[in-house]
């Protein structure tokens, strides 16, 4: 098949059977569950003072780190088998993103870039720029490379495939970084772990949705040359803004009564960060779809 043999199937809408897994629905379920878990643990540990025995911390934290991956498996990957047109490369992309994050992203960030050693004393603007052009660009470029090279061109059939594969990559990166965090802080409080997981998921999902949009639009639409680089920069900037802003919101205020952190602000920020890119990107995806429909109608 080639692009010249593009088939347009215009069944009557009332009879149409949607052949793909509904991506947004899965995302809402998965992210909603993680968000609910974060809120629940925050209340239980932060407000109600629940404490776990030390021996239970590591297993619980590992479970929390793996929660996005588990939810993705249940609500995204398994349902693919039950639809007429499954996305065959989901598991491959997920696994590859884990490997890429482990082999490149993590070592690059923690051993080479080490932003914490030179950015922590900088101004807010410099921190945003610094994180964008280092941590952000590295991670989003790697995600782009996975999308670009792990998927055969025919794997992107509809624009929402970009969302589905982007989400798989985001979950892979989130899982790897969450596991790394737990391995370095096995005795961290579960509420801190789930908040870290939530923030990671929000950042990576937001970035992946933007990157997925750029790749899908480049592949399927009539995108300009600069759309893809721009989406890469925007996705990187999302990390650049999110990392300093989240920690800045949470950072302690010092007085002679001691330092008081503001985890509630950090939680609220993570929830907004999780929801906002999805809302915005769903608008972009729909707009793109509408543009494509208009083009088809014009051709008809």
């Amino acid at each position, binding site marked *: 098949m080639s*692009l010249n043999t593009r088939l347009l199937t215009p069944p009557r809408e009332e009879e149409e059977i949607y052949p793909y897994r509904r991506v947004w629905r899965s995302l809402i379920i998965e992210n909603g569950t993680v968000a609910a878990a974060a809120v629940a643990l925050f209340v239980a540990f932060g407000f109600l003072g629940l404490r776990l025995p030390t021996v239970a911390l590591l297993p619980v934290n590992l479970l929390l780190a793996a929660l996005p991956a588990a939810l993705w498996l249940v609500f995204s990957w398994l349902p693919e088998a039950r639809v007429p047109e499954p996305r065959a490369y989901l598991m491959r992309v997920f696994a590859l993103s884990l490997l890429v994050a482990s082999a490149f992203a993590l070592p690059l960030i923690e051993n080479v*870039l080490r932003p914490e050693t*030179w950015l922590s004393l900088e101004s807010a603007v410099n921190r945003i720029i610094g994180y964008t*052009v*280092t941590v952000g660009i590295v991670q989003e470029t790697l995600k782009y490379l996975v999308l670009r090279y792990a998927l055969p061109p025919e794997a992107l059939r509809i624009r929402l495939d970009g969302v589905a594969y982007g989400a798989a990559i985001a979950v892979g990166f989130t899982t790897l970084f969450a596991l790394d965090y737990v391995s370095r802080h096995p005795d961290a409080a579960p509420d801190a772990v789930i908040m870290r997981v939530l923030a990671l998921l929000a950042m990576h999902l937001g970035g992946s949705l933007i990157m997925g949009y750029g790749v899908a639009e480049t592949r399927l639409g009539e995108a300009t040359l*600069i759309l893809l*680089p721009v989406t*890469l*920069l925007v996705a990187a900037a999302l990390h650049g803004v999110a990392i300093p802003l989240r920690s800045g919101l949470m950072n302690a205020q010092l007085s002679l009564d001691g330092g008081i952190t503001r985890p509630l602000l950090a939680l609220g920020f993570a929830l907004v960060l999780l929801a906002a890119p999805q809302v915005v990107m769903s608008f972009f995806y729909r707009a793109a*779809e509408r543009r494509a429909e208009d083009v088809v109608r014009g051709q008809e």
Partner: protein
Amino acid sequence: MRLIEVRGAATETRRQRQAHALTLIVAAVVLLYGLNLRQSTLEAVVPYVNIQAGITAFYPQNWLLDTAPDYVFRVRDMTRRGYKTTIQLSVQPVSDDTSGRNIADRLALTRARTFTGYSVLAVEPYPLRDGFSAQAVSYTYVSQESSPFLQGIPVVVVGLDIITISRGQALVITFRADAATYRQELPRFEQFLQALEF
């Protein structure tokens, strides 16, 4: 809702390929900029001028500067966890007969009294810029928390003294860092030496 599906698009258009290429170029450029930003931030320096001692130096930004009778100045990286990486510059009077090696021996004898586990690792020539020759004395010792009320764990420190004699005085430029990060930190000292004017 209409479903717009693309089947069998095994190849990319030229525009798509160009977009991908441009993306990679942009990524590379931004990353290079990031690395450059990192390097320039890490290597940011602050000038120090001491007219009386005839010394101009550039020390790392955000390092704590202090002066004392024992040395002309000292800078420490107070944001570093554990042992605070230190660069120190001191001057000592010398006679016509004093050599860099004499100064090195005197330093070793003095420090052996005050530093736990002090041991000289090597004494070797060290070329400075502008043709100055110097002695480099590398040594190690154990640094311990000084407050008696805290539970400090001793840290193994590696030090490097660059000793040169100029205009009738010995200049001792000292670098000390945690043994675990010594090599990683050494370039900063080399950068300091490169910019030092005396």
